[in-house]
Each structure stands twice: as C-alpha cells, then as structure tokens.
C-alpha cells in the first residue's frame, strides 16, 4: 500500500540508485587502494630483487667462482639465535651492498627476506628470516640454453601465498633468487580502508535519503494542494482555486491551467443555472394562465362559449410554452454543436428580399415603411437559418418602431465580408441594455412577455450567425430619428 505513494516510490528508487552508486564508488576506491598497495609492495620487492641479483652477480665474479661448493661464512651482519643456522650456503663471498643492508628485516619474520637456491634446490644464501623454501611455486627457468647468460631478465610476476608476497627469478647461472615479504600490514590497511569506505558510504546514504525525502516532499507539495482543491471543487464548491505561488515550475503551470479550467467550469455552471432558472421563470406565466383558466372554468357549469374561451386561452398558453421549449431546444442544440447547418451557396440579397416580403404585412399593419438597398452577394451557408435571423431582426425593427417609422435594410460587401444592416427609427436601445441584448432571456423591457417574445430570439440569431463564422452586434444610430441598428457580418466564402 505504502509503495503506491509516489513519494515512497521515488524514495525507494532514489535509495536503490544511491546505494548502487555508493557501492560502485566504494568498490572502485577499494580496488584502487588495493592496487596501489600491491604495486608498492611489488616495487619494494623488485628494488630489493635488483640489488640482490647485482650482488649475486658480483659474488659470481671470476675471483669467487672457484669457491663455489664451499661452506659460506656467516652473514656479515650477524645472525640472531632464534633462526636456524643457515645450511648449504656455498656462496661464501655473497654480501649485500652496505646501502642495501637495512633493506631486509633479518630479525622480523614479517619483514623482507631473500632466498637464493641452487639449481638443485639447495639453499645458497638466505636472510635469517627466510623460510626454508619459497612459499610459492617458482616458475621454471625460462631462458633457453644458449641464451646470453649474463643478461639479467625481469622476474616473473609476483604471487601471493599464505600471507606473503614473493617474486622469483633464475639467474643466468641457474640459481633461483626469491624475494618476499609478509603482506599482513597491507591487508590490515585494506581492511581499515574497507571499514572507512563503508562507514562513509552509510553516512552519505543517510544524508542522501534524508535530503531526498525532503526534496520529494517539497516537490510534491503542490500536488497535495491541487488534490485538496480539486476535492473541494468536486464536492461542489466551484469557487475554490489552487494557490499558484510557484507559478514558474511545471506544477505551477499545471495549477494555472487547472485554475483556468475551473474558472471556465464555474462560469459555465453559473450560466447553466441561470439559464435553467430563467427557463423555469419563463414557464411560470403560461402555467399560471393554464391553472387559473381551468380552475375558474371548473368551479361551475358554464355555457359552451365560455368553455371555448377557456380552451382558447389554454391553447395560447400552450403555444407560448411550445415556442419557448422549441427555442430552448434550438439553443441547446447550438450549444452542443449538434445543430446541422447546410452549406449551400445562395444569394443573400434575394433571401433578404424574401424576408422583407414576409414581414411586409406586419409592417403595413404598424404603418412602418421598409426600404432596402441590397447588392447581390453570393455566400455559402444555411439559407433557411440566415433568413430566420433576418426575419427576426426585421420583426424587432418593425415592432419596436414608431408609427410611420422606417426600417432600412442594407446589404453590401465590405472587407471580404457580407455586411447586413437592419436599422429602425424607434426609440433605440438604452445604453445600459446594449451589452446584454443578445443574452438569453434578457429583455430591455422586463414586462414584454407576450407570446411572440420569448426573450431568446436574439440569442438564437447570435448562435446561428456564430455557427456561420460571422458576428452580430447592436448599436444605436446617430442623428435624430435614428433607432437601433443591428449589424450582421458573414464571411462570403464559408
């Protein structure tokens, strides 16, 4: 369970990697140290070996050669009693040069020692602390017969045996020279190094894990905040926002993106609520009509004409509700992007002229004159839907006009757009209402709740125009007698 947490998993991986790196470093440091120590020991051995071979070479000098086979004298530097007296040491005149005398720890069993053996294996010379025979197996003589005998060869690689390190070689005269020493001090030093490395590695690991824990916690803190905010929002409090103090980091950017999403969500939600409340509100009046009409009619027996009136009133209320519901559904389809628009090329001027003919009876009834100025202009779009927009704008222009007023409809191409203007000579729109006229259920005059006015007409116009990639705006005309002007802009080729 605990390893499902990102923090713990990060910590675990971090720990594993840290251990691996530390172990690698430790092993490498140990190996380097070991190599260094061994090299040092080997160098010491080689130096002594060189001195020894040159001394031996001198002992084999022509003046001494005849003495071979004789019992040697004791070593010049004396010999402690605890070493057995050397035997079979025929190299009577073999002495170490004075500068090298102290190189062999003659009285320490763990010090440097040497051993010179005859080809038959008898000891020719040895330091007092030398073992009876080489501890390791001396490689066989490698010089083939006939090779230059006086040319000294480098010794064979050193070997380690029973806690001692030795090198050995064969002289041209086939004696075997062995130099060795105990490597106990080096082993102790290596052990100490290993302990030191382990302790230091452990400390670094601890510090690293602690630091990692702190860093991971710090890095994950914004996630905790995002999560707690998201929880509050999902619980219904849409006004919550993530605190984006670290706006520069990746999580800060994520928080900013989430915040803007939350803001849009809240707005959409509020709009939806407002829309639902408005829709319910709009249904109240027609339902009131239905209820009062039917309840009144049912209180007693009535004449047929009275029932007829009631039924007619109910029908009007029902029609009004139907219109409202249709408008709501239409808007909902546009909102959801489900409204399918046909995309056919057609002459907008001709469509507008047809709309004018449609609206003319209403205009004549209100004694409003409609003048048109329509340049033929072919655009691509849904002719029926755009005609609905134009009819709606014309109807408003006629309805909100004054008697003997005028409605001017103008269509022209401007900057690659089809621009359609519907201007009336009514009272215009109050400046406070101008920004809101396309809002759903917004009415400049709140009581204008007649059956023909659902408060959604202009919202639907806007939705249709925007679905065509166009725009619609309302303004008040300037000059005397100028009322409201609605301007429609549509791309010519959609």
């Amino acid at each position: 369970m605990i390893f499902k947490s990102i923090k713990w998993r990060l910590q675990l991986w971090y720990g594993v990697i840290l251990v691996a790196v530390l172990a690698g470093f430790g092993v490498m440091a140990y190996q380097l140290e070991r190599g260094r120590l061994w090299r040092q020991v080997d160098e010491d051995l080689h130096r002594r070996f060189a001195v020894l071979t040159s001394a031996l070479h001198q002992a084999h000098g022509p003046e001494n050669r005849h003495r071979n086979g004789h019992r040697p004298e004791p070593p010049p530097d004396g010999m402690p009693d605890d070493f057995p007296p050397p035997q079979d040491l025929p190299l009577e005149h073999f002495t170490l040069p004075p500068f090298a005398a102290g190189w062999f720890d003659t009285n320490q069993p763990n010090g440097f020692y040497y051993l010179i053996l005859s080809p038959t294996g008898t000891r020719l010379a040895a330091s007092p602390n030398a073992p009876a025979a080489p501890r390791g197996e001396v490689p066989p003589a490698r010089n083939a017969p006939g090779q230059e005998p006086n040319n000294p060869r480098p010794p064979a690689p050193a070997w380690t045996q029973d806690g001692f390190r030795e090198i050995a070689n064969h002289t041209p005269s086939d004696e075997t020279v062995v130099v060795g020493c105990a490597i106990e001090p080096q082993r102790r030093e290596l052990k100490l190094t290993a302990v030191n490395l382990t302790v230091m590695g452990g400390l670094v690991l601890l510090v690293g894990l602690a630091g990692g824990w702190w860093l991971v916690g710090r890095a994950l803190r914004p996630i905790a905040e995002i999560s707690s905010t998201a929880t509050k929002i999902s619980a219904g409090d849409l006004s919550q926002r993530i605190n984006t103090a670290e706006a520069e980091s990746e999580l800060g950017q994520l928080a900013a993106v989430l915040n803007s999403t939350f803001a849009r969500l809240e707005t959409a939600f509020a709009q939806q609520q407002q829309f639902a409340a408005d829709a319910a509100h709009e249904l109240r009046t027609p339902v009131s009509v239905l209820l009062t009409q039917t309840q009144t009619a049912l209180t007693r027996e009535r004449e047929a004409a009275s029932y007829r009136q009631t039924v007619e009133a109910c029908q009007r209320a029902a029609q009004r509700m139907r219109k409202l519901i249709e408008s709501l559904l239409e808007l909902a389809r546009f909102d959801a992007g489900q409204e399918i628009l046909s995309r056919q090329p057609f002459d907008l001027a001709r469509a507008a002229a047809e709309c004018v003919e449609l609206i003319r009876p209403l205009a004549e009834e209100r004694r409003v004159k409609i003048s048109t100025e329509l340049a033929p202009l072919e655009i691509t779009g849904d002719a029926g839907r755009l005609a609905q927009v134009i009819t709606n704008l014309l109807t408003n222009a006629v309805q909100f006009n004054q008697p003997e007023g005028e409605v001017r409809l103008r269509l022209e191409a401007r900057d690659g757009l089809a621009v359609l203007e519907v201007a009336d000579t009514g009272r215009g729109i109050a400046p406070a209402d101008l920004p809101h006229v396309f809002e759903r259920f917004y009415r400049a005059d709140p009581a204008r709740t007649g059956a023909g006015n659902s408060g959604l007409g202009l919202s639907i116009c806007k939705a249709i125009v925007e679905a065509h990639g166009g725009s619609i705006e309302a303004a008040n005309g300037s000059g005397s007698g100028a009322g409201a002007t609605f301007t429609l802009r549509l791309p010519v080729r959609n």
Partner: protein
Amino acid sequence: MRILIVEDEPDLLASLAQALREEGYAVDTADNGDDGLFNAEGTDYDAMVLDVMLPGMNGWEILRRLRQTKKTPVLMLTARDQTRDRVKGLDGGADDYVVKPFDLEEVFARLRAIIRRSTNQTTNLREIGNIQIDTAARVVSLHNRPVELTAREYSLVEFLALHRGEVVTRTQLYEHLFDENESSLSNLLDVHVSNVRKKLGAEFIVTRRGHGYCIE
C-alpha cells in the same frame, strides 16, 4: 368587496377577474403599471392583486407610490420566487405574496386573509344577533340555518357587518360592491337592500335617511 387586479398577461388577467367576480368581489382590472397606479390611487379598494413585471411602471414602483397615500391591502403576484424577492416585496409594503404558478384557492384565501387583517378581524366568523356570517365559506345563517343569498347580497351583508355600528354611505357601498363598469346611478343597491331585508329580517339593516345604511 372591491378588488383591483394589475396584470399584463391578458388571459391571466381575464380568468383571475372572472374567478374573483364569481367569488362575489367587484373587480377592476388594469393591464399596465400606469393605469394600475391611477386606479389604485383613485378608489378605496378592499384589496389589490399586483403583478411585479408590468409594462410601464413595475409592481415595486406602484407599491412604493401607493403607500404614500393608501393602506390598501396588496397581494403581490410574481414569477420571482427567490427569498430576496419575497423579502423585497414584503418590506416594500406588500401584505402578502403569491408565486406563479398559483392555485386560485390559495389566492382567494390569501385575499380573504389580507382583507380580514385590514379590517382588524381575527376570525372568519361574525355573529350579529341571531345571524352568523362565515366570510370564508361566504355563508350567512339565520337561526343556524343557511340563507340563500346572491353574491351581491352577500357582499352587501359582509361589508355592512365589517363596518358594524358605522353608517355606510351609498357612495361607499357603490365603491365597494360595484366595479367601474357598473352604473352607480341605477337603483340596484336599493333592490339588494330590500332583498336582504326580506331574507334576514327588516331590522337587520337600518336605513339612516340622507346618510346611508347601518347594521347595529
């Protein structure tokens, strides 16, 4: 009882007016704010049904202006059902509040209630000698037996009973029993008084010649 209804939805206005007339009220109507205020200021209505959203002057404004001169009980009628709207209406001087859509029964009951309160009554029952008046059921009983009265006759009895001991002038009676479309020059009132006396006894309504009528 005479009531003014101010409502801009014609079908709602018509059916409300009809229903209230059938309940025995004299009903005047106005379909916009300006006419509504004009009527309300010009006549002593027993109650007023007032819509909030009206063309011209809205309901709040009518209420505010009316309260400067009149104490007419007002029942607000509106599509707004938020608490703050109710509070605004009641604080603005409305006596009660009904949210659309409503049931007629409830509107009737609330109207009776605000009229009762405005005349300082606590119950719907009044007893005058051996005559009982139930203003909720709109029934008048003599010796515990219901008496058949027309709606107008009942209204006459109810109005005089509410002003028991006071002399009610013919003008007052015309104002409260007849709506604006009925001629006050007719002798309709005398006919109703005469009919009530026949049904409830000649002494029930006393004529104060030159002044009006009275129930003692």
